[in-house]
């Protein structure tokens, strides 16, 4: 009952937010919240640290941007195209990456992401340093004009809510239980007869697809897809958002994303200090705040009773 109340309240807040706040900022928070929640599927619920998630986010952004700008597709189709491209990359990289565990897995994902980054630098369709600019928002389903920031916001919100609901269902399903058991003790899961590699790959692809959804949506909302979206700093950022918010909790990553994006926005004028602060947040979280914001709250709740 308590959880439902929280979700309901938050949904209400999100529904009225564009009339109180700045829609562009809110959309950014939502896109990154989705990105972080998708990432959390892998680390929080399956125990796999991917250090290259930007490849899904950024590549989907490029594909979606290209689809909308060059092929002239409507926004929902463009986003779909981007999401599918992320799924494909997820399948390919996941298949390679699950061959290793733990640290090696993380390093492999990092290296594969860097490979995708350089491929993006070389590919003509990404326009390298310039990025894909002036991506049109188009008309949703061919009818609804998306040029208003508020209208665009509701599309982004709808995507976020749908994806979040999906993650919720997955986590609470039998599939999700197996993932958690793999996180806790892979050997035991194996000995119970589960094809651990298949489950890991499935989780990886799902996580990649949703991360791609976030990136594809971001490209349409902001009209820009650049190398920053596929860079390793972006991969590191999403890790930080999830760590700060609370790995393994459902809304933790979203909260972490909100905090980090807000911080970046207000401290933008400080330039490199943002990087320094992010680094410090990492260090502090790893040393003394491993449960993250939501994780800490949940722990206190559980402990007090």
């Amino acid at each position: 009952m308590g959880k439902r109340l929280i979700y309901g309240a938050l949904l209400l807040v999100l529904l009225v937010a564009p009339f109180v706040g700045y829609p562009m900022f809110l959309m950014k928070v939502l896109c990154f919240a989705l990105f972080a929640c998708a990432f959390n599927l892998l680390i929080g619920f399956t125990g796999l640290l991917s250090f290259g998630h930007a490849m899904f986010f950024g590549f989907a952004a490029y594909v979606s941007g290209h689809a909308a700008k060059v092929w002239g597709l409507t926004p929902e189709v463009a986003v779909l195209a981007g999401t599918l491209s992320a799924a494909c990359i997820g399948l390919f990289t996941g298949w390679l990456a699950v061959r290793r565990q733990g640290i090696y897995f993380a390093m492999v994902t990092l290296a594969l992401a860097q490979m995708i980054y350089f491929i993006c630098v070389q590919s003509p369709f990404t326009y390298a340093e310039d990025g894909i600019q002036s991506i049109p928002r188009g008309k949703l389903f061919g009818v609804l004009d998306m040029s208003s920031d508020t209208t665009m916001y509701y599309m982004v919100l709808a995507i976020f809510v749908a994806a979040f609901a999906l993650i919720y269902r997955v986590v609470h399903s039998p599939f999700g239980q197996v993932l958690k058991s793999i996180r806790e003790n892979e050997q035991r899961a194996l000995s119970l007869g589960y094809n651990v590699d298949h489950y890991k790959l499935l989780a990886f692809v799902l996580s990649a697809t949703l991360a791609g959804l976030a990136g594809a949506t971001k490209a349409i909302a902001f009209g820009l897809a650049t190398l920053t979206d596929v860079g390793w700093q972006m991969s590191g950022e999403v890790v930080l958002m999830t760590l700060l918010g609370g790995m393994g909790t459902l809304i933790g990553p979203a909260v972490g994303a909100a905090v980090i994006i807000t911080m970046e926005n207000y401290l933008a004028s400080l330039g490199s200090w943002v990087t320094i602060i992010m680094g410090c947040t990492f260090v502090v979280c790893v040393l003394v705040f491993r449960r993250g914001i939501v994780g800490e709250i949940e722990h206190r709740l559980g402990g007090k009773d």
Partner: protein
Amino acid sequence: MKRTFVTSAIAAATAVFLAGVSTSAMAQGKLSGDSVKIGVLTDMSGVYADYGGPGAVAAAKMAVKDFGGKMFGKPIEVVNADHQNKPDIAKNVTQQWFDRDGVDMTVENLNSAVALTVQALGKEKNKITIVTGAATARMTNEDCAPGTGIHYLMDTIALSNVVGKAIVKDGGDSWFFLTADYAFGHSLEKDTSEVVKAAGGTVKGAVRHPLSTGDFSSFLLQAQSSGAKVVGLANAGGDTVNSIKAAAEFGLTKKQNLAALLMLLTDVHAIGLNTAQGLYLTEGWYWDLNPETRAWSQKYEAEMKKKPNSNHASVYSSTMHYLKAVQAAGTDDTAAVMKKMQDTPINDMFAKNGKLRPDGRMVHDMYLFQVKSPAESKGAWDYYNLKGTIKGDDAFQSLAQSRCAALKK
């Protein structure tokens, strides 16, 4: 106990969120017709920091101060931001400036990728965007924004027309390009290739390097093995400096000539006269041209401790021109101000009879310089010998040749 905690947790979270959301909302609606707010967007710490950077901000502030600091009784505000050469940061900042912070005009806006983003945004929001430090000719052609976008200093066509032609005339008829892999580099390579071929030369090939490359050795090796007489550097700022230094280290200049297609005074300063001497380059302005330029440069040097380059001078000149136009028009409405800017010729220390054309191009004279040898130079910043003055109409592409679709209607 638990319910209270949960409730307070929700309340706290919502409060934090709304606080973040509403403080951004509070800034909305400050845009007033009376107060003029200017944004200087540039690279403050990266490969182009010496081109624009803090010097550009200082130049804009100097213009505001010399104008009197006030417009119709209200103080003129200058804000600035560092885009770190990333178009997404540039777009974010400029969007917020236009949407929420009441900025009326942005100036500087190097590099070319940023300039394209900002100009498109200015067109969308109907705000004046003045680009000085970026060079791609796409600004007044494929990506033009006639009612709002201004391209003030130089472009890749002018650069190739002046430097390219001069070098081919000198005997450099086979070229190999070292190109910065983004809008600017591609434009410069394309425009210079056309000039070279039109003058009867050949282009043997090109190699692309990422923006802000530290080590040019492997690219220069490719240039060396091409056998071309001239290695054209289609890059700028720190990249040009590093290319030239590496070329010296590898002995490239023993058998081939270097052509720095875009080089500013601050680059020559970084390379040093020993290595840079003899290089041909073109700029739109130089501090030592005449008494007016010298006087202004002295004022700038007093504040920044170094002489200004042509980009800094153009920021000053364009900002002043804008402010005068606002004053003459009596409003900061974009269309009215733009008309005044186009109708009034620019006559200041930066240009004589400079003209702002409908496609956004500001046409002014360009100068061909050759870098002095250490013996010829009388001191710091005394680096150039003037080799020729090229009239604006000859250097820049004519209006008739423009590929700006919006103008043809």
